[in-house]
């Protein structure tokens, strides 16, 4: 039975578990239950990816209503890959959650925290799995609303304003998306993505199609925090509880990038978007400017979490750059970076979270001498930081390699050069932290206790993964290559 209903179970299991958390109430019990659910989701997502790689596209009709009329869950290589990423991150973070949430979230709200966490997971996986354009919007709202709640649970009162700012921008983005989808529905009378991709081409000349595409694209770009629409992101990541920051940084923007890929390549088709409307003319320069501007902003931050948040926006620039090349290699680079960046940024935010637990601060000035005071945590930070720069033998190198390869393939060597040079900015902001932590003497040089084992497991698990996938690229690159081929070549 599990085999047949795999796609729906992946969504329903966390969805049903969220209200059960409210009924359970007891802190540790809720945590144990939520962890179990996350691990189960990981199992289901891996089974799904294996099946998709073996059998090709899987379709599931909800309520037994067949595709163009009913809501269809449609899983191919790309979403199976994103689903796996989201569930891996959600499951690994649960170890970190127990001590970290006790420290950062008020005791009365723990069960609500895990409820929101599971709902957010449901929403993110729902966005990735569905083959129905309106369903994407519904799940987008589920994940967004729960992430506003999660961010607002931060210890700092500024978390409330950050969450509110994100709410305004997120709602704006979601509204644009739903206007776009509404116009598409008006033109074609269908919401099924596959059906849309066949009914839209005759409408390409109309102004409605242009307007629909414009609304949809701007909405998605807000959601994925593309420069210059990223202003909601740094505050939201900075003031949210550590666990939430790591979770959102590794999954939320990545899933939005998947939505962008799905709509531009599958629904509208690369021909319309890139040959007729020439979106790449905007995408490539904006990505490059974004990489430079936000990396520079990262250099000048005095708060580590905010520094990492700006760096996230810069990394999104690399992914969009890869997409902008519109070639199999470029897309492979973008999709691989989507996975790799999730691993390293989560590892970095977890390391920051470990320090916050012991030190109570993510201000750079307080991190003086931390290399001696918390050597294990800082070692993880440095390793993941190397990945961010793109040093060989780390995952960061793999994704940059494909991006530069794609630029050279297209004959755009200045872009390759610019992308390479931008890594130097990453060197600068990672080095700033290293310099403070290892070369400046702390006022109080006593050793601090390392973070609890549970948190170390998550942190080192992800840091280890950034090294493992930097050497063993079979899973990530091969699947990304298949996904890229699917998006570009054989448009379904």
């Amino acid at each position, binding site marked *: 039975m599990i085999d047949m*209903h795999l796609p*729906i179970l992946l969504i329903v299991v966390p969805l049903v578990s969220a209200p059960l958390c409210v009924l359970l109430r007891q802190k540790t019990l809720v945590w144990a239950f939520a962890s179990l659910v996350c691990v189960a989701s990981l199992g289901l997502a891996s089974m799904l990816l294996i099946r998709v790689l073996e059998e090709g596209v899987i379709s599931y009709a*909800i*309520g037994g209503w067949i595709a163009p009329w009913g809501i269809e869950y449609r899983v191919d290589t790309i979403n199976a890959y994103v689903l796996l990423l989201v569930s891996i991150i959600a499951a690994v973070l649960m170890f970190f959650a127990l001590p970290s949430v006790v420290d950062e979230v008020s005791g009365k709200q723990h069960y609500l925290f895990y409820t929101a966490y599971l709902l957010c997971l449901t929403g993110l996986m729902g966005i990735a799995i569905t083959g129905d354009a309106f369903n994407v919007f519904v799940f987008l709202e589920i994940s967004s609303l729960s992430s506003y709640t999660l961010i607002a649970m931060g210890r700092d009162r500024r978390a409330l304003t950050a969450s509110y700012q994100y709410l305004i921008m997120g709602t704006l983005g979601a509204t644009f998306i739903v206007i776009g989808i509404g116009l598409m529905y008006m033109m074609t009378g269908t919401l099924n993505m596959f059906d849309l991709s066949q009914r839209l081409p005759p409408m390409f000349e109309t102004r409605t199609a242009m307007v629909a595409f414009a609304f949809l694209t701007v909405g998605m770009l807000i959601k994925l925090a593309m420069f210059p629409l990223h202003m909601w992101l740094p505050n939201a990541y900075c003031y949210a509880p550590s666990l939430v920051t790591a979770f959102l940084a590794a999954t939320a923007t990545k899933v939005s990038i998947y939505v962008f890929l799905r709509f531009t390549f599958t629904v509208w088709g690369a021909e319309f978007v890139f040959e007729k409307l020439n979106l790449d003319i905007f995408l490539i320069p904006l990505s490059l400017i974004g990489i430079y501007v936000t990396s520079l902003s990262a250099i000048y931050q005095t708060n580590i979490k905010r520094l990492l948040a700006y760096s996230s926006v810069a990394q999104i620039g690399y992914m969009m750059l890869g997409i902008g090349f519109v070639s199999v290699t470029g897309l492979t680079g973008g999709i691989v970076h989507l996975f790799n960046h999730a691993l390293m940024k989560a590892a970095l935010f977890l390391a920051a979270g470990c320090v916050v637990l012991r030190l109570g601060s993510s201000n750079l000035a307080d991190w003086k001498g931390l290399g001696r005071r918390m050597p294990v945590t800082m070692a993880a930070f440095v390793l993941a930081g190397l990945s961010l720069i793109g040093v060989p033998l780390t995952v960061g190198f793999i994704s940059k390699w494909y991006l530069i390869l794609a630029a050279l393939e297209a004959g755009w060597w200045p872009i390759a050069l610019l992308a390479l040079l931008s890594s130097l900015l990453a060197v600068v902001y990672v080095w700033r932290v290293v310099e403070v932590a290892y070369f400046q003497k702390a006022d109080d040089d006593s050793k601090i206790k390392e973070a609890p084992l549970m948190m170390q497991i998550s942190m080192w698990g992800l840091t280890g993964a950034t090294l493992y996938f930097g050497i063993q690229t079979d899973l990530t690159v091969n699947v990304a290559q298949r996904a890229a081929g699917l998006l570009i070549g054989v448009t379904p």
Partner: protein
Amino acid sequence: MKHESIPRVVSKWFIPPILLFALYVQFHGDFGPGGGFQAGVIFAAAVVLYTLIFGLQAAKQIVKPRIIETLVALGVLLYAGTGLVSLFLGYNFLDYTALDPADPPHGQHLGIFLVELGVGITVAAVMIAIFFAFAGRRRLR
């Protein structure tokens, strides 16, 4: 407003019919306009009216916040649970035919009835919870 006799008497007259009307909108939703969402809001409106007239404390004694929270969860569980039942009976998720395979329209009818009941419960509870949260807010000095 506890001491104003006209609002008190009028609201006492009004609250029962409002609750009854909510149930009507809920269960008559498959024959006329209505459904779980509308019914839930109307039901919550009755509680809101009671709170406005008799105060938050009195209202919280009738509808306890703890119970409200449980109902929020139970409504969702009823909805998803209906879907899971059809899953366990060998049909697709939310395929209500599973509830009465001999007579599919009846199965669909029953399925939508249960799902809408779940929606009604959750919407009413959420509305009340939001209202209580705002009403209970103290001004910061």
